[in-house]
């Protein structure tokens, strides 16, 4: 019998029942809940008179609608406020733990899960949010679900699923200077396309992935969904286990030793069979910048905006033309000539302590260009914020002219007051550059935290790998 992939192992470990056509009832170990995709699920429970199967397996937090300034004044927008209050009421009514806006542990749902040890290796994890794929970085099977499924998990602690196919993406060798986890994953999406992972669970492996910290691995898995895969995975190693030692919800005492032993098996067997394998040479990856309105429309920073006339596929060519129009860019324009209006450092992709350290290292002792209207740093959680302040990162940012905000999703999707105005151009560390994503008519370029910080200082994109050298001289 061939060996098993990590996905096979996680799947088999959670099957409760399988139907003849292969759809299975799988057990869910942790559900994360936020205010946007849960109200109709709780309403469904109320309408049918159902109770949660297990309250203790759910953890809730409000993040999408939360203001990042003047928290003590509450939420100004009445519609946002009602949604956040509805979450609080629902959690109180059904007995679910919630970190509210005043709690230091509040933050973006995908940042607080690992931070608290509420999402652990070997678990199945769901949330009504597509970036739940983030948690796969810990060797857990984690994916986003819709609101009907949120209700289903609340009521049964299970989900009906069909097993996906196995894909392995190996990033071989070492990355060059200025190349981060974000650049790796953007380069992968550029290569396989936003539909490349449809129907698959993607395991990321190879030397360049192993070399990443947990934070970096989360950045990679966060964007698996942008490659079309519901779940991304990275096998457990010492980095994973060290990360989870002594987290508030991590197992304690003898349970910890049991868990550690179990987790050490959470990797694909050497002879495991994958349906598809893709190899990427880490050394070939340069800092990445998206130029279009889909994450797959991405190039290296030292490249030029591509020409749709050179694209043979008619459907792709049409999307490129639409994207250029929306983004107000010309084919052949150098990426480093693109000037920015706003800078956003944050989101569940890049708002962890390591991201902020990296951005601060670039910004240290410099000033945001006068042409930039707003450069903001939004930590992923209250605890990330606290840690960053203890390290003096907030000072570095504010002295350079960045705004230092309170945690939340913020301008990743602009459901709160933070947004782009029509026509404004933003270098953003988030994960989606769709039309209107950061505000109606706004234009988004996805980059790493280092690249965003450097663009803030220069006022336009710069190649952070060579630019840092110039500055150091």
């Amino acid at each position, binding site marked *: 019998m061939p060996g098993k992939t990590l996905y096979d192992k996680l799947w088999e470990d959670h099957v*409760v*029942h399988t*139907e003849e*056509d292969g*759809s299975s*009832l799988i*057990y869910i170990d942790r559900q994360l809940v936020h205010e*946007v*995709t849960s*109200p*109709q699920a709780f*309403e469904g429970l109320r309408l049918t008179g*159902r109770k949660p199967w297990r309250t203790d397996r759910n953890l809730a937090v409000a993040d*999408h609608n939360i203001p990042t300034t003047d928290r003590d004044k509450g939420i100004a*927008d009445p*519609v946002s406020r*009602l*949604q956040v209050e*509805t979450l609080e009421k629902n959690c109180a009514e059904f007995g679910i733990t919630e970190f509210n806006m005043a709690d230091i542990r509040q933050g973006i749902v995908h940042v607080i899960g690992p931070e608290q040890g509420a999402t652990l290796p*070997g*678990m199945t994890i769901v949330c*009504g*949010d*597509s970036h*739940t794929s983030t948690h796969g970085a810990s060797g857990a099977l984690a994916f*986003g*679900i*819709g*609101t*009907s*499924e949120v*209700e*289903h998990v609340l*009521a*049964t602690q*299970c989900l*009906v699923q*069909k097993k996906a196919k196995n894909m392995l993406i190996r990033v071989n060798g070492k990355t060059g200077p200025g190349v981060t986890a974000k650049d790796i994953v953007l380069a992968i999406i550029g290569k396989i396309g*936003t*539909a490349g992972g*449809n*129907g698959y669970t993607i395991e990321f492996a190879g030397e360049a992935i192993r070399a990443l910290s947990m934070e970096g691995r989360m950045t990679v898995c966060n964007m698996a969904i942008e490659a*079309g895969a*519901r779940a991304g995975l990275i096998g457990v190693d010492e980095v994973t286990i060290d990360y989870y030692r002594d987290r508030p919800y991590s*197992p304690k005492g003898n*349970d*910890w030793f*049991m868990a550690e032993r*179990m987790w050490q098996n959470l990797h694909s067997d050497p002879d495991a069979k994958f349906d598809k394998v893709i190899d990427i040479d880490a050394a070939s990856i340069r800092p990445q910048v998206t130029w279009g309105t*889909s994450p797959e429309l991405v190039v290296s920073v030292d490249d030029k905006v591509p020409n749709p006339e050179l694209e043979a596929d008619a459907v792709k060519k*049409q*999307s490129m033309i639409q994207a250029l129009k929306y983004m107000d860019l010309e084919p052949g324009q150098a990426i480093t000539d693109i000037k920015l209006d706003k800078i956003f450092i944050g989101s569940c992709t890049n708002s962890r302590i390591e991201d902020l350290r990296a951005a601060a290292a670039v910004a240290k002792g410099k000033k945001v260009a006068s042409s930039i209207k707003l450069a903001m740093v939004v930590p992923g959680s209250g605890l990330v914020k606290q840690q960053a302040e203890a390290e003096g990162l907030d000072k570095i940012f504010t002295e350079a002219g960045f705004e230092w905000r309170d945690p939340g999703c913020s301008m990743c*999707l602009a*459901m709160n007051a933070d947004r782009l105005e029509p026509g404004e151009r933003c270098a953003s560390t988030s994960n*989606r550059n*769709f*039309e*209107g*994503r950061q505000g*109606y008519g706004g234009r988004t370029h996805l980059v790493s935290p280092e690249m965003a910080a450097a663009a803030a200082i220069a006022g336009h994109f710069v190649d952070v790998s060579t630019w840092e050298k110039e500055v150091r001289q």
Partner: protein
Amino acid sequence: MRAFTQITGLVAPIDRANIDTDAIIPKQFLKSIRRSGFGPYLFDEWRYLDRGEPDMDCSTRPLNEHFILNQPEYQGAEILLTRENFGCGSSREHAPWALEDFGFRAIIAPSFADIFYNNCFKNGLLPIALPAAEVDSLFQELVPGYRLTIDLAAQTITTPAGRSIRFDVDETRKYRLLNGLDDIALSLQHADKIREYEAKRAKRAPWLFTN
């Protein structure tokens, strides 16, 4: 959930790949705590010339006359014909809610994003993936007034010329959709198995059962 058996419906084409959920229903409408009423805001940024806000009265908003769903010959469309990777992006079930509320019953495309595909079935909306060449030929055949018949039980689409196209769908999903069944009730039939699973697992991984 509304059952889906057979429909003969007007087809509206949107010739564009990678239509994401932010385009299907922009995020400001996700602030609603209700499940209905999203139809008027479907494709909001493409459909209207002004910026949409929740609870706006859409009957007085300026329409983008070039957008296909605003053209008189496509009023009352029930089937959406579109390109690959439809519904990519977020997990928001508001996307199928908006499509369904607008009046769509089925979507035909070469491929769909996984979460969106799954969400459709929970809402009586049938997503049909056909080979790209087949979708291409439907686009070419399409003239205003073009109607298709979709029969879920037989898994066929019939064109006005009488050509029949077969499509695939999972047995379980088909059964649930044909009968408009509540997923939760069906899963709770296995309550004993869930408890058995929990008891076994609690021995191997007690930390998942202690806090």
